[in-house]
């Protein structure tokens, strides 16, 4: 594989495969008399094309996983639309349409130790989606399971199918989780921190597997991570999330070389860089992500922002475009 990762996305002109429009999620917390809300997600819109990896980066609590859980329909959004090939999936018929949607959109979770059932063999866990979604019958099921294991790099497949999760390493388990997602031939895979629990030396193997699936099968990925370097490695586009808002979005390389939003700049300055050394770049903004319970108006980053202006505390900035496919929400640019 000589081709560098992050080749341009397959067909940027085609209509978006997965589209999220103005997605909002408020979780109620606290008392009956004075109900309060955690504003987990505020007005999030983006698209994922066929054969495109969109990376969603942010700190813990920024709303990355909530986004994935809304798209996979584990949780209902407060408002907003989720469209797959133009069809609003939240409005569509429950049972049958929902089965179809769940086939086309699959998820890989962070922790491969808890996302597989410890009581069943790997083969059994891969058969289940094939049977439920009627992807194979009779003898073909076994063959398909072996094919999936081989695709995910679990060799020899005949042996792997008979193993149980406890016999596998973390990296192998995550490959099983990927094989399970692939069983139903999905069009979109939501990967929520798929490598953060894995050992360093086997992370690249899993990232490269995702890269290959994107290139060979045209699967679109939403790659959720807190690691900017891996977002740059795998993501065609990168979106930076802060306190439930997407604050900046652009082509990964352009975004990381030319970060405009003060928060993106802060994140990039904080990434360990062996070339530079710890003392070279001082982190200017101290503090942490603010409370998301009924937050005050204005930009959520204002309390930490080194370049804060009066307007920042009054209104959330609108989108400003600063380059091809590169936009942000910051009053410095509006």
């Amino acid at each position, binding site marked *: 594989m000589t081709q560098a990762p992050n080749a341009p996305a397959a067909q940027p002109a085609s209509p978006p495969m997965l589209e999220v429009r103005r997605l909002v999620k408020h979780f109620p917390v606290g008392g009956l008399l004075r109900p309060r809300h955690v504003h987990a997600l505020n007005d999030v819109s983006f698209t994922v094309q066929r054969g495109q990896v969109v990376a969603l980066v942010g700190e813990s609590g920024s709303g990355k996983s909530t986004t994935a859980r809304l798209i996979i329909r584990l949780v209902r959004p407060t408002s907003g639309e989720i469209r797959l090939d133009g069809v609003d999936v939240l409005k569509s018929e429950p049972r049958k349409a929902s089965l179809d949607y769940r086939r086309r959109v699959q998820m890989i979770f962070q922790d491969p130790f808890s996302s597989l059932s410890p009581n069943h063999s790997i083969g059994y866990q891969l058969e289940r989606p094939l049977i439920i979604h009627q992807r194979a019958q009779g003898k073909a099921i076994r063959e398909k399971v072996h094919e999936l294991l081989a695709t995910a790099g679990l060799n020899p497949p005949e042996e792997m199918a008979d193993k149980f999760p406890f016999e596998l*390493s973390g990296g192998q388990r995550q490959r099983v989780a990927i094989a399970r997602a692939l069983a139903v031939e999905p069009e979109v895979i939501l990967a929520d921190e798929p490598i953060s629990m894995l050992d*360093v030396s*086997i992370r690249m193997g899993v990232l490269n597997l995702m890269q290959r699936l994107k290139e060979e099968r045209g699967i679109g990925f939403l790659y959720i991570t*807190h690691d*900017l370097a891996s977002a740059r*490695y795998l993501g065609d586009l990168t979106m930076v999330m802060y306190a439930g808002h997407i604050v900046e979005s652009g082509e990964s390389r352009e975004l990381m070389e030319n970060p405009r939003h003060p928060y993106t700049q802060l994140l990039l300055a*904080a990434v*360990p*860089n062996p070339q530079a050394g710890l003392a070279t770049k001082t982190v200017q903004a101290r503090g942490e992500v603010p409370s998301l319970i009924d937050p005050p108006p204005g930009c959520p980053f204002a309390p930490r922002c080194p370049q804060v202006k009066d307007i920042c505390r009054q209104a959330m900035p609108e989108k400003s475009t600063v380059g091809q496919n590169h936009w942000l929400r910051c009053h410095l640019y509006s």
Partner: protein
Amino acid sequence: MNTKLPTPASAAEPILDIRNLYVEYLTPRGPVQAVDGVSFSIGRGEVFGLAGESGCGKSTIAHTLLRVLRPPAVVTGGQILYKGVDVLEMGEEDLRTYRGNYAVGGEGQATQYTLESFRWAEVAMVFQSAMNSLNPVVRISDQITDVVMKHQKLNRAQARERAAELMAVVNIEKKRLDAYPHELSGGMRQRAVIAIALALRPSLLIMDEPTTALDVVVQKDILQQIEQLQAQLGFAILFITHDLSLMVEFSNRIGIMYAGNLVEMASAREIFNNPLHPYTQGLLTSFPSITGERKRLTGIPGSPPNLITPPAGCRFHPRCTRCQPVETQVAPEWQEVLPEHWVAAHAGMPLPDRTAR
């Protein structure tokens, strides 16, 4: 496997000198050889990084050093010399009265202590998860005063004053002193843990994945703070992490561990610029960079071995891309191939000519 002991890095007497340490976990399926003949030393005021994947033995070394290993873990060989005294030989009583017996001057306050502990007063530890190392139902102030009152002759008011001082050192506002751990953010909790570790002015601070659970911005903030504190107070640090890029940034010298063995040891710069062991080279190609060309990276094929039946010869050989037949039979030898650059190498390994430099 280590037939030759490395000489201390600095010409001065090292604060910690681990010699040929062996630790095993006894399990029903056989002993797990978690630490297999590891030797290294840490100089005064030095930051020594110990890097490796989970299960390579780096945390076991830290626990052995503090003598907090519990059965089924047993030390089966070696010495841990702290300021010249073997920690493994200390009785429980000695551990608590270490400072009384072997008082070390030059620290200013040493003489006013009578019943000191080796743990905490000399070597303190910061664990990975602050939430698990703080007591959730005790106020932060009490958790600090407990430590200083137990080890120093201070009354409650003085101890509280000391607690406030310590909180100021790690940039936590004084009004947060009486907070419970759940009222603090993750970063503040980890800072409180660091404050408690530094309460008795230890000479060596062990940090086991201190920032792994934190976000990058908070991580950077805390590490910069530790660097400043270290410059002021002059303690040495044993820094344990799997994040090699963070380690290269933060440490003076680095030891790379694989499956219970130390496979390479050199200055941080040297490890980053001139790695010699195939495992170190593999690790360095296992994480993408935030700058420069985007190259396809390969990582290391396979996964770490089971340490009940480790591979014969070099433990890395099943995953090694440059494996030679000799490696599957004969354990490599720990040797200094360049000044201050140690590597576990076998006879056939291409090595730089020492005299050429």
